[in-house]
């Protein structure tokens, strides 16, 4: 029987009632945010150097994190999707672990590895690399938390591709690298786009790992979410405005992604 979504296939009346009630719980705070924001002074507030600084830093940190995630994510996704790596399930679990780890735990873990008294900290310091409480540290924390989204998205994208196309390319004499460059990557473009968007969104909102590992130093490690947290105590107006700003960015990404992450709306490759 085909489910037309109408007639016998329609949901019992109780389901939409619960669903809509639940949804309003999510929408009400968002509406409140928009209502409480004082739009008349928004423009001046946005020109506040402290806010501009946080914006700039957030952008730099997130873009760098996305770039690192892409460089690490594709090889990892390729290994997971295309090779018979030993302990593949374990490796995938480890690579995706930060997705389910509380970010603050990630930050503490980073401290234990790269902190002043961490495993690698003294060694890094002896060659002049300081990570805690630096922009590089903030980037590391944000990458730690957001990169798994890239790995997961790219692996799913690779699994969606017809692997036999790569065999076809091999019979035509193409070396592995040529196959990746000319056959795999062009087809993977939509997944790469989705991975970038998801990773960027996650990076932009990162709070816990950053504050634990890199602190909240304006101009160095204080990204937008940290600035919002701080202004909660000092300037509630700008906290609202910055929150709206982040909301708009997230919403934009979600709309751009809609076609890709909503299940069933995924346009699969035509295998003719």
């Amino acid at each position, binding site marked *: 029987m085909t489910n037309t979504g109408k007639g016998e296939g329609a949901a019992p009346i109780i389901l939409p009632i619960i669903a809509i009630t639940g949804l309003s719980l999510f929408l009400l705070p968002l509406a409140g945010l928009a209502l409480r924001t004082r739009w008349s002074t928004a423009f001046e507030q946005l020109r506040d150097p402290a806010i501009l600084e946080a914006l700039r830093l957030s952008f730099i940190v997130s873009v760098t994190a996305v770039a690192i995630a892409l460089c690490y994510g594709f090889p990892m996704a390729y290994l997971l999707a295309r090779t018979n790596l030993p302990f593949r399930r374990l490796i995938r679990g480890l690579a995706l672990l930060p997705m389910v780890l509380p970010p603050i735990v990630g930050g503490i873990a980073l401290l234990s590895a790269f902190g002043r008294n961490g495993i690698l900290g003294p060694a890094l310091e002896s060659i002049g690399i300081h990570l805690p409480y630096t922009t590089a540290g903030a980037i590391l924390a944000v990458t730690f938390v957001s990169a798994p989204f890239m790995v997961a998205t790219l692996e799913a994208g690779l699994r969606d591709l017809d692997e036999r*196309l790569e065999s*076809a390319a091999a*019979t*035509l*004499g*193409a070396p592995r690298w040529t196959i990746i460059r*000319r056959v795999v990557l062009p087809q993977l473009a939509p997944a790469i786009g989705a991975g970038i968007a998801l990773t960027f969104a996650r990076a932009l909102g990162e709070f816990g790992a950053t504050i634990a590992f890199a602190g909240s130093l304006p101009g160095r490690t204080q990204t937008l979410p940290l600035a919002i947290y701080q202004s909660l105590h000092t300037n509630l107006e700008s906290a609202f405005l910055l929150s709206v700003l982040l909301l708009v960015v997230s919403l934009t990404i979600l709309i751009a992604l809609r076609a890709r992450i909503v299940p069933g709306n995924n346009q699969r490759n035509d295998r*003719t």
Partner: protein
Amino acid sequence: MTLRADIRIRRDGFSLAAMFIAEPGEPCALIGPNGSGKSTVAAALAGILRLDAGSVQLFDKTLDNGRRALCPQRRNVGVVFQDRLLFPKMSVRDNVGFGLRARGQSRHDADKTASKWLDRLDLTAIADKRPPQLSGGQAQRVAIARALAIEPDLLILDEPMAALDPESKPAVRRLIAQALDDFPGVSLCITHDPVEARALARRIAVIEAGAIVQVGSSAQLQRTPRSAFAAAFVGINLFQGVISCSGDKPVVLDARRCGQHEDAAPPVAIRIASPDQSIAPDRSEVFASLHPRAIILGRDKPQTSARNAHRCAVESIDPIEGALRVSLTGPITLTAEITDAARADLDLTPGSTVWASFKATEVHVYRR
């Protein structure tokens, strides 16, 4: 530039042991039922699957010897895949030039060679389109041009026309036949279509349950099929049995249609003319083939010179090109070929009872 293949692969319960030789300029077809190992043979030759034992030798190059296998890139084996597997994000021209570029040719040189192949396969007009925009016949020709452009030593066509609609088949078949005629290397065409096999190949290899059971020309296959599948493929009735003598007349006793299970029907005696000298007259295990056109159907018991006559029931009637195929069951299972007019005169429908008769001389007997 001979291909010598002895392909041995074991995979989850399936065991392939296919041995055959193919010569250049003598296009070969590989036919067999589903699951008989055709695609595995193709994958082993292309280097997508590795041998467990045996060897594949192409001219002076060992492609695989069971221990060391050449990777697909270094085999120079062109493959036309069943569902084409064109690169969706590249133009038709880039698809055809892909192999050349992969071998380090400049874009200019690759485009020049690609243009030549596009022209040969009548694709110049669509050179800038992407594969998703192509019709089935066009996509198939692009796949062939792409495989031929690398000038392979061995060309494998895997069901080259299975995905095409009936209207575009003849034109594509002619183009492939032309391309194979001009192709200097060894070619192997996997197919389940008798018309395709006859049009594209000079030799036909029959593979069943992982082993090559017969190799021969289409005419040889028609005259002496050696398995139920081969007989069905060329549309011939095939029996197996033992020669015996009744008086001084040789008779094939215990004749059973090939492929039919022992319990399905008791064996039946088929009268034959004297078999040729190579077959010892008594107790020889033989095949007996009978062309469907040699069978005469009638409503009444025939009073003719035909030595064989059986009362059968019509099981089904299927149209084939220019005639009808009538499947008969009874003491003997037969396929007869009659015209539409004959069917009308006899008023045959499934379930009708008919007498099927054939002359002893129409039965071709050969050693098993």
